[in-house]
């Protein structure tokens, strides 16, 4: 309701001012009055009472506006001309010119609308920092009081301990926001102290977060090296019936003897194919020389499967052409 009143008040006031300045040249009038409504709305939003009470009659406002706009016009133009002359004088020495262009470039960044908008927006992010600060403070305390506790970004709410941590974080956030809202205007000394405390919290939190075992990290440990998993687990999808060893440069090897950690020969499961083991000098079959020679039931020899070789860190130029992915891909 109040804002509706304000809006109509602004519109009426602005319309009267515009009418009073109708005789100005169109371009001047546009420049001068372009933001009038917006400006009056700002004024109206920051105080009690109607615009007439606070700014006087719109007719007087228009007279003052006209005077203010007309007053400095000549002065400003003179100032500009003098500036140009000065700039020309400065460009005469190279060093000064360089310094001037660096300064101008820096100012172009600082003066750019986006830089100003970013700077103007930053204070809006203060409450976000208050919340984050409370959370980080709770995290730092948890880390400080429990050495070997597996610290996570969000505690498990199903455990008593996790629930307590979440509650503690809630209290810390509440406190932090409370402090933030109260310390709007500090004198110089306490202000420096407060800023230092904030920076300290951020740095300590960085150290704590650096040591944190995140979910992604523990998952990585579990799945990083599937090739090294035990045979049974790794080949749960199907029986392991043969092993095809290759040298580093991709050449197929024959009669490679495999033993496990206890020195026992590694054997594989029997498949539908018939395996022909070589016989040793002692008359016993050698069952762990790979790849095994196997024949299908119909008599066809079992052929080696197509394999993809891993790309080595430094591929040797002598490596035979292989289906390994090239490092440039």
């Amino acid at each position, binding site marked *: 309701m109040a804002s509706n009143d304000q809006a109509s008040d602004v519109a009426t006031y602005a319309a009267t001012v515009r009418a009073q300045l109708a005789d100005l040249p169109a371009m001047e009038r546009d420049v001068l009055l372009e933001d*009038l409504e917006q400006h009056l709305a*700002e004024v109206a939003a920051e105080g009690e009472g109607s615009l007439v009470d606070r700014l006087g009659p719109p007719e007087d*406002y228009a007279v003052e506006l006209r005077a*203010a706009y007309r007053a400095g016009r000549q002065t*400003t133009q003179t100032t500009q001309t003098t500036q140009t002359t000065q700039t020309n004088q400065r460009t005469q020495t190279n060093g000064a010119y360089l310094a001037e262009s660096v300064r101008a470039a820096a100012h172009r960044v600082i003066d750019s609308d986006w830089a*100003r908008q970013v700077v103007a927006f930053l204070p809006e992010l203060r409450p976000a920092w208050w919340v984050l600060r409370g959370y980080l403070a709770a995290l730092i305390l948890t880390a400080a009081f429990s050495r070997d506790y597996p610290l996570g970004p969000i505690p498990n709410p199903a455990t008593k301990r996790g629930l307590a941590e979440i509650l503690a974080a809630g209290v810390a956030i509440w406190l932090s926001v409370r402090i933030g809202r109260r310390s709007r205007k500090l004198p110089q000394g306490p202000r420096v102290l407060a800023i230092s405390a904030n920076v300290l919290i951020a740095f300590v939190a960085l150290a704590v977060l650096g040591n944190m075992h995140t979910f992604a990290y523990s998952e990585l440990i579990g799945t990083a090296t599937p090739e090294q998993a035990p045979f049974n687990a790794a080949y749960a999808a199907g029986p392991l019936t043969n092993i095809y060893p290759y040298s580093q440069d991709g050449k197929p090897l024959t009669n490679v003897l495999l033993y496990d950690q206890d020195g026992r020969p590694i054997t594989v499961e029997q498949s539908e194919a018939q395996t022909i083991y070589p016989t040793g000098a002692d008359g016993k079959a050698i069952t762990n020389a790979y790849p095994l020679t196997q024949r299908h039931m119909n008599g066809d020899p079992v052929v080696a499967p197509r394999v993809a070789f891993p790309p080595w860190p430094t591929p040797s130029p002598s490596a035979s052409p292989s289906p390994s992915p090239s490092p440039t891909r």
Partner: protein
Amino acid sequence: MSQAEVDTTQLLKGVLDLAVLAVLADADSYGYDVVRRLRESGLDHVGDASVYGTLRRLYQAGALNSYVVPSDEGPHRKYYGLNNRGRKALDQSAQTWASLSKALNHLLNGRSNSHGK
């Protein structure tokens, strides 16, 4: 308006540009805030229309940048800030003002001294 107020208003007209530039050199600001800061500095009689008109003129002359900042409490605010040209104009006007006020103070002191004799 008292005679003193009229005097202040008349004198202020010439230096309002300088005053507004000085306020903006301190920090970017929107129209009503400029008025408030001028009044807080002791320029009690500065009019809102004068400041708004001066801001628009300085903006038109290329001495100011302007951008809009959304506000969740009220209307969006149009902020003004000095650019390179504005800073140069401020430096120059400040020098002019310094020499002018020095000369004028000298004159006024001379007058009060001769009165004293």
